[in-house]
């Protein structure tokens, strides 16, 4: 374990560590564009200069391994001058696009200029003109003029997604990123290139121009798109959620996430949500607040016998919620007719080798664990038979948040509507539900970003996540619904309004964000 001195501090590192990795781990600031911990070393931006004692020239930090007793510093005037000129060379052909570029606020060039630059530019010649707004594929748009040719995206398609779609064409200052003839950037991980691009050359078609990043707050949570459970950061403000980016987790997803997980913010926003509970009786649909609807359902449930009551669960809720509702049904309503609604049995065990899994529910293992704990062994056939014969009169369904991954939604709704009384707990709207007949309760639920909880992923890893914000404040969590349906009142949480800033649980952790690269510096907004 060689020891070295970085900017005066002594650091001990593992054998074979490069200087830049040691500096980033130790929290030192070093300018860089082309180095990324999850990709191979390219050494093309020439910005990560450091001065090593004993070497007359400045060296790049990304390709130099640390040896015993190395003395490294990147605060001397020589290094600062080298970095300033490296930055100058990057900027001489860069277009004046900050007003229309999405990356403003989290741009590598902007950040490094404010830190190392602040010089008067001397380029008085016409800039190099290249193609703008190039459609690279179904998800990504390229702007060649903004590209600084760090080759991160090229290395990504070579090493991580292994699809080799991107390359650098032409040479010299006519170089451009592009795809080969007839092969668009079309793989399931393409939006990661937008994340790693330090400038606004690659932009996401989904997010393009929708919001300025300094208007967004971010919070970490766990993706609920599939059983991998990638750690993600969701960006949101008063108007809703805007995008999803991955967070590094050594054990689960590394640095990346798949494109399907990028869409998880869509079913959380208000437009797609059930806002008020809808209760249908003989006189038609009536609206009422969610809590009142649950209490109304309680009136029915307290008279229902355990034999004619069934509970259907989808694996998209947290472990704590499953525990609450299952124990309510087992202990209070005395029924063991609890069924697991599996959405895609055939493709359940698929795995594409990188991150995507066939099981599109985040908490299958969690649900199975809870069911096992309470000794539930019922299968879906029992439910079908019970509904067909009329033995089961009341069904409570905890419907899916992410309806897109339930291709059999409509058939199941038809099947479950055979019951006399249907209590459907769901976060999102669906016309199939509004066209039901019989006694129906549609109660809005909270989505995964609005509650604290635990998901257990495919490998049995428990991941706890915190509440991000509230989108529909009237909606209930499954725990609250279980409490209300069993006739109890909700516990009012003790007010803690005046916690100091560093103890408030909903405050974004600024220290961790400082370690992330090119993180937007949020202003006072």
């Amino acid at each position, binding site marked *: 374990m060689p020891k070295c001195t970085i900017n005066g501090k002594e650091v001990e590192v593992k054998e074979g560590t490069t200087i830049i990795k040691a500096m980033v781990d130790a929290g030192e600031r070093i300018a860089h564009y082309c180095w990324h911990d999850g990709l191979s070393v*390219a050494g*093309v931006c*020439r910005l990560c200069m450091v001065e090593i004692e004993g070497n007359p020239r400045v060296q790049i930090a990304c390709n130099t391994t640390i040896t015993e007793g190395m003395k490294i510093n990147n605060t001397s005037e020589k290094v600062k001058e080298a970095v300033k*000129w490296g930055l100058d060379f990057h900027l001489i052909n860069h277009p004046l696009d900050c007003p229309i570029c999405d990356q403003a606020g989290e741009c590598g060039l902007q950040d490094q200029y404010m830190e190392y630059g602040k010089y008067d530019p001397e380029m008085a010649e016409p800039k190099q003109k290249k193609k703008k707004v190039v459609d690279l594929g179904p998800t990504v748009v390229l702007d060649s003029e903004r590209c600084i*040719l760090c080759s991160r995206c090229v290395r990504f398609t070579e090493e991580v997604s292994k699809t080799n779609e991107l390359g650098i064409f032409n040479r*010299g200052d006519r170089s451009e990123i592009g795809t080969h003839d007839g092969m668009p950037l079309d793989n399931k991980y393409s939006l990661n290139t937008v994340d790693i691009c330090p400038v606004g050359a690659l932009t996401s078609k989904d997010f393009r121009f929708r919001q300025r990043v300094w208007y967004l707050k971010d919070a970490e949570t766990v993706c609920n798109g599939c059983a991998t459970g990638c750690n993600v950061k969701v960006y949101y403000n008063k108007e809703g959620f805007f995008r999803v980016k991955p967070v590094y987790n050594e054990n689960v997803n590394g640095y990346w996430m798949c494109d399907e997980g990028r869409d998880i913010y869509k079913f959380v926003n208000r437009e797609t949500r059930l806002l008020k509970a809808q209760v249908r009786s003989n006189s038609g649909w009536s609206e009422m607040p969610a809590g009142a609807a649950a209490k109304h359902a309680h009136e029915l449930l307290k008279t229902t016998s355990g034999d004619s009551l069934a509970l259907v669960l989808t694996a998209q809720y947290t472990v704590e919620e499953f525990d609450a509702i299952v124990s309510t049904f087992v202990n209070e309503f005395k029924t063991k007719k609890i069924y697991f609604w599996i959405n895609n049995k055939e493709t359940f065990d698929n795995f594409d080798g990188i991150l995507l899994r066939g099981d599109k529910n985040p908490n299958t293992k969690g649900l199975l664990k809870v069911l096992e704990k309470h000794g539930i062994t019922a299968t879906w056939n029992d439910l079908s038979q019970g509904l067909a014969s009329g033995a089961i009169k009341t069904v409570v369904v905890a419907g899916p948040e992410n309806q897109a991954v339930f291709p059999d939604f409509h058939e199941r709704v038809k099947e479950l509507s055979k019951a006399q009384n249907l209590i459907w707990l769901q976060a999102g709207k669906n016309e199939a539900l509004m066209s039901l007949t019989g006694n129906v309760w549609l109660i809005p639920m909270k989505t995964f970003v609005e509650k604290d909880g635990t998901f257990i992923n495919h490998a049995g890893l428990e991941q706890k996540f915190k509440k991000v914000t509230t989108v529909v404040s009237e909606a209930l969590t499954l725990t609250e619904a279980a409490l209300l349906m069993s006739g109890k009142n909700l516990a009012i949480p003790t007010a803690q309004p005046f916690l100091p800033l560093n103890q408030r649980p909903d405050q974004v952790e600024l220290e961790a964000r400082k370690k992330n690269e090119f993180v937007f510096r949020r202003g006072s907004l």
Partner: protein
Amino acid sequence: MAEVKLLTEFYHLPEYQTLAGYKAKGGYETLVKALKMQPQAIIDEVKASGLRGRGGAGFPTGMKWGFLPKNNEPRFLLCNADEGEPGTFKDRMMMERAPHQLIEGMIISAFAIGSNKGYIYVRGEYVYPIECLKKALKEAYDAGLLGKNILGSGFDFDLDVYRGAGAYICGEETGMISSLEGLKGQPKLKPPFPAVQGYLRKPTIVNNVETLAAVTYIVRDGAQAYRKNGTEKSAGTKLFSLSGNVMKPGNYEVPLGYPLMDLIMKEGGGMKPGRRLKAVIPGGSSAPVLTAEEVAKANLDYESLAGLGSMLGSGAVIVMDDSQCMVDMLGVLTHFYAHESCGQCTPCREGTGWLDKILHSILEGRGRLQDIDLLIKIADNMKGKTICALSDAAALPVLSFVTKFRDEFEFYVREGRSKVKGTTYAEMHH
């Protein structure tokens, strides 16, 4: 002193190109001698001779061979016949007139370093030299001088010619290796060095055509005989490609240490009638230019030219007389480097383009006085910060031209036309 024809002794004979003609003048006898020696002995002989790389860098060849790992890992010998440095045309002459000289040198070198596979990377534009090489290779294979069990010694060596596709950057050793591997011809990061991890991640030695051909003569005559020519630190003879405003341009083989003025005036036949010497680029376009006074003090060896702030380089001596406009000349050079930069690392990619744009602004009459200082600043900050030496090669001529001939640049900026020729750029290149 005069020309010493060590390598070029028989180049005037047209039959020297063929195997029979080459053998008639003592060809391949050294190969027989070498195959009986120990490989390490050959390496020691080359080290003792002080042979330095003749392609431009001047790195001691024996030392380079000594970096190879001493195990049984398969290794490659690559011959750099890309000859991209502007002004150089010596390797072309060797490949056209004496391809067997190169082949024999390569077989001996491969035997010394333990390599069984070699490539000759020739620039794509050399259509005729490639033909000559291919013919010579066929003759060698047919005669059992290449392939399996060469001359019954048990040593196998396969040699192929690989054609380049028009990139100066593929003359850089790792750029060449990338190109041979089928990738884009872009240099790789060093470390790891090619002698440790090169072509296909195996140990690779890259040497210039002339260096490999000289190995034959070192093995034939011995290190001490080779050292009889040249100086203490720069041993042996070298081919110099003399071009520009001289009476007799061409390739000349002289011992290292030969006075530069003599090469121009004696061998080169001197200036054209009525013209004076103004400047000389002694080692290919990447070498800093020398004024006429400095030329009088210069000897053609690595130390003397380095002492004057220039370098021996590939040995391409470009002579300029007083009819040459320095601004125009620099414009040609910056355009070359801007076109040939591979574009990987930022200082070179943007810097060469920027230098070219400024030069063209000046040439077209739109220059500003601060542009001249700006050229110096840019060139200073491009040096020493890149993956390969193309950035230095582009910066050094700019620095030397602007510092030594600053009055011409200032005149051009102020008046919009050349001081020497009196005409504008459009008139010079109509």
